[in-house]
């Protein structure tokens, strides 16, 4: 009896309330992917409506119930789906899912620590995330439906149930869920920063950190600085909604009534929201960039080109992200001079971004590239980062923004540069570190198949959206069929929707591969990719503490790939030199020759 009890307790603390960063990482990954899959299904559902407006999809009614009566989606449910899709993808999949998984997995392993600074806070971070996910999903089932004011929840629409049904109980739960989410994210970030600064192993100086760690560090810093501001914005909104204050509301006439609120301004909300909202883009993107830097270098068997420039450009991007939020608000009637300032700072971001792209390209140049699925997704990220990035020059320029603001051009832009890049980075990371996560290998063939379906469909979905933008089609329209000028767009919309459906189905390949490999895949060796960084010196099986005995000492940076001596032979007989190998005579550390 007592042993049974003991086992149950063991199980509970190993798999559920674990304080081991590796288990927490897996928890984040699986919860994030589940949320992501729900977000993906939502997008497919509203793509059905956009591709074939008004058409009846009886099959879908099974899934949607009264949201899709007689198989046709209603306009307010369309908005509810759009809102939830955005919220889930941005926050639950790409913030918590991506950063939570890989920061947790890699920070202790790559810097040489036994665990995070506080395993307890780390566990709390996951469980807050879990609770907020559950609440967000519950909000789908309340009266009036889930929040429907767009993922940016601008008041007054989000503040007034009279304006849209989703702004009732659904919005309340959204705010509750997001507040818990913010706490989760803050607890995580706190831990990441302190761990990186305080628990590095001997010899692991800041300039010997893998770029992944730099990316996670900067991401966490952005999170600590920007998420509290979103919390303050949400709090003021809660007061306006529930207690009759007027922070955001003023002079409103709705449903035949004048409201008592006066003196507030919705613009205040936009300022507070985007002060988080823009750094959030990089909270999503930087981890993906870090992951691919690591993978591209390892898999092309070459040092990452311009290690310091990579760090510098990430820092520059992080810094600039705090002074560009106004570019989401060019058309809110802000002072045109302020608009000019924001145009200037926004376009500056193109410089560090360009540096990163060119450094990736140079890393591939004269490499010896091993094409695993992780490599493919990393190359995919470079591609989407370019294709989505260049259109940023259009949107960031306030004069040009006038005509493309809030059109499908924007949707195309940010889905490619932020959505696709981040999810490609996440897939790359999962394929690459799967052996560390589950001690088994994923199947390459299925991985390749998954990549090819995904990239082709992704471009098929988001590239044409730019052309909808050229035609002036606004985003968040339930259907384009109410305007004769958009009649011809139906072909494009159909085209996009078909690709979207195929893309969704293609993700099943990944999920199958993931589940199968985690349970029955071939056992992983210690260092399957012949990589230098510290995580590959840990045993395959998981235990709390990461290394048996002493934590290894680090002697060099992690990018000594294909280092040759004066005869042109590999220095240590192999094309990689782990960080734990002491420097030889006359051998310099880091990027020097």
């Amino acid at each position, binding site marked *: 009896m007592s042993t049974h009890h003991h086992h149950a307790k063991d199980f509970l603390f190993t798999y559920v309330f674990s304080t081991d960063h590796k288990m927490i990482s897996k928890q984040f990954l699986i919860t994030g992917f589940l949320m992501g899959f729900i977000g993906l299904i939502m997008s497919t559902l509203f793509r059905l409506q956009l591709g074939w407006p008004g058409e009846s999809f009886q099959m879908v009614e099974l899934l949607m119930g009264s949201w899709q009566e007689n198989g046709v989606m209603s306009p307010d449910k369309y908005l509810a789906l759009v809102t939830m899709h955005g919220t889930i993808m941005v926050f639950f999949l790409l913030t918590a899912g991506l950063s939570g998984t890989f920061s947790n997995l890699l920070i202790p392993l790559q810097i040489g620590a*036994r665990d995070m600074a506080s395993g307890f806070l780390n566990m709390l971070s996951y469980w807050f995330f879990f609770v907020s996910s559950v609440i967000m999903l519950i909000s789908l089932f309340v009266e009036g439906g889930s929040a429907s004011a767009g993922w940016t929840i601008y008041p007054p629409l989000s503040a007034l149930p009279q304006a849209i049904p989703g702004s009732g109980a659904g919005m309340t739960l959204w705010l509750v869920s997001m507040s818990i989410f913010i706490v989760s994210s803050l607890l995580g970030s706190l831990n990441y920063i302190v761990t990186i600064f305080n628990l590095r192993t001997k010899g692991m100086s800041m300039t010997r950190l893998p770029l992944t760690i730099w990316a996670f560090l900067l991401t966490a810093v952005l999170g600590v600085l920007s998420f509290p501001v979103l919390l303050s914005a949400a709090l003021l909104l809660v007061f306006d909604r529930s207690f009759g204050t*007027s922070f955001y509301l003023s002079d409103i006439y709705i449903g035949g009534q004048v409201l008592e609120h006066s003196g507030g301004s919705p613009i205040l909300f936009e300022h507070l929201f985007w002060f988080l909202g823009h750094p959030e883009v990089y909270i999503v993107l930087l981890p993906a960039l870090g992951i691919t830097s690591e993978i591209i270098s390892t898999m092309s068997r070459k040092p990452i080109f311009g290690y310091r420039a990579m760090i510098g450009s990430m820092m520059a991007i992080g810094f600039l992200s705090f002074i560009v939020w106004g570019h989401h608000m060019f058309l809110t009637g802000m002072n045109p001079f302020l608009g000019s300032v924001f145009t200037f700072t926004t376009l500056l971001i193109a410089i560090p971004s360009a540096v990163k792209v060119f450094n990736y390209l140079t890393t591939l140049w004269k490499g010896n590239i091993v094409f695993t699925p992780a490599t493919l997704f990393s190359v995919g990220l470079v591609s989407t980062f370019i294709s989505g990035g260049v259109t940023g020059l259009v949107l960031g320029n306030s004069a040009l923004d006038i005509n493309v603001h809030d059109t499908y051009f924007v949707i195309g832009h940010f889905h490619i540069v932020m959505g696709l890049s981040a999810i490609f980075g996440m897939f790359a990371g999962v394929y690459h570190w799967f052996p560390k996560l589950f001690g088994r290998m994923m199947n390459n063939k299925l991985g390749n198949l998954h990549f090819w379906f995904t990239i082709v469909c992704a471009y098929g979905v988001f590239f044409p959206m730019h052309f909808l933008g050229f035609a002036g089609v606004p985003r968040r329209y339930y259907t384009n069929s109410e305007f004769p000028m958009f009649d011809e767009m139906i072909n494009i919309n159909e085209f996009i929707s078909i690709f979207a459906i195929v893309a969704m189905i293609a993700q099943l390949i990944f999920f199958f591969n993931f589940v199968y490999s985690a349970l029955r895949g071939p056992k992983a060796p210690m260092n399957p990719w012949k990589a230098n960084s510290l995580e590959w010196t840990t045993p395959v099986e998981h235990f709390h503490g*990461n290394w048996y005995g002493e934590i290894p000492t680090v002697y060099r940076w992690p990018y000594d790939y294909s280092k040759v001596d004066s005869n042109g032979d590999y220095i240590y007989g192999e094309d990689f030199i782990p960080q734990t190998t002491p420097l030889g005579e006359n051998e310099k550390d880091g990027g020097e020759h």
Partner: protein
Amino acid sequence: MSTLTAENINYKEELKRKTSKPLIWIGIVSIIMFFGGLTSAVIVSQGGGGFLAIEMPFAFTISTFIIVASSLSFHFGLISVKKGNYSAAKLSIIITLIFGLLFVVTQYMGWTFLHDNGYYAAGKESTQESSFLYLLTGLHVVHLIGGLFSLLVVLVKTMKNKYSLENLTGMQVSITYWHFLGALWIYLFLFLRFIIA
């Protein structure tokens, strides 16, 4: 079980020593950003239209003195522990706790004064500036209650003579947070005094 180094008690102690202080500092940074967001919200709102002046309750001025005094007494407690004078430490921590509670009381008196003078936190008659006044002070008190709990823990541990010159981390973390709360209040007080009132 010996392989589970991360669950070794020595390791845990060392970890706590190494990371507690940075954790609280970064936590403080995020609280600063939170109040920074709110106070800049006040400034943005003020730019939008005329802000009415509100008479600041005198109780808030008393609060300021109290919280400064509480920081001093807490600090004295830390010094006493370092000197090994535990009875003085206990006394000063009890005094700090009382000051902390008094602070909450004076805050409450301030709100009563505001309410009786027709400045409401919310509702039809409330104005943005009065709402902000309640909100900022109220949120500060919420953070202070966290501080009071940590004070309680410190008090219990001092009673049990758990602290020593080598083992002060818990108390130092608590005192850092408490000083921060004082500084935050002084910032808010000046901000409210010169921006809203």
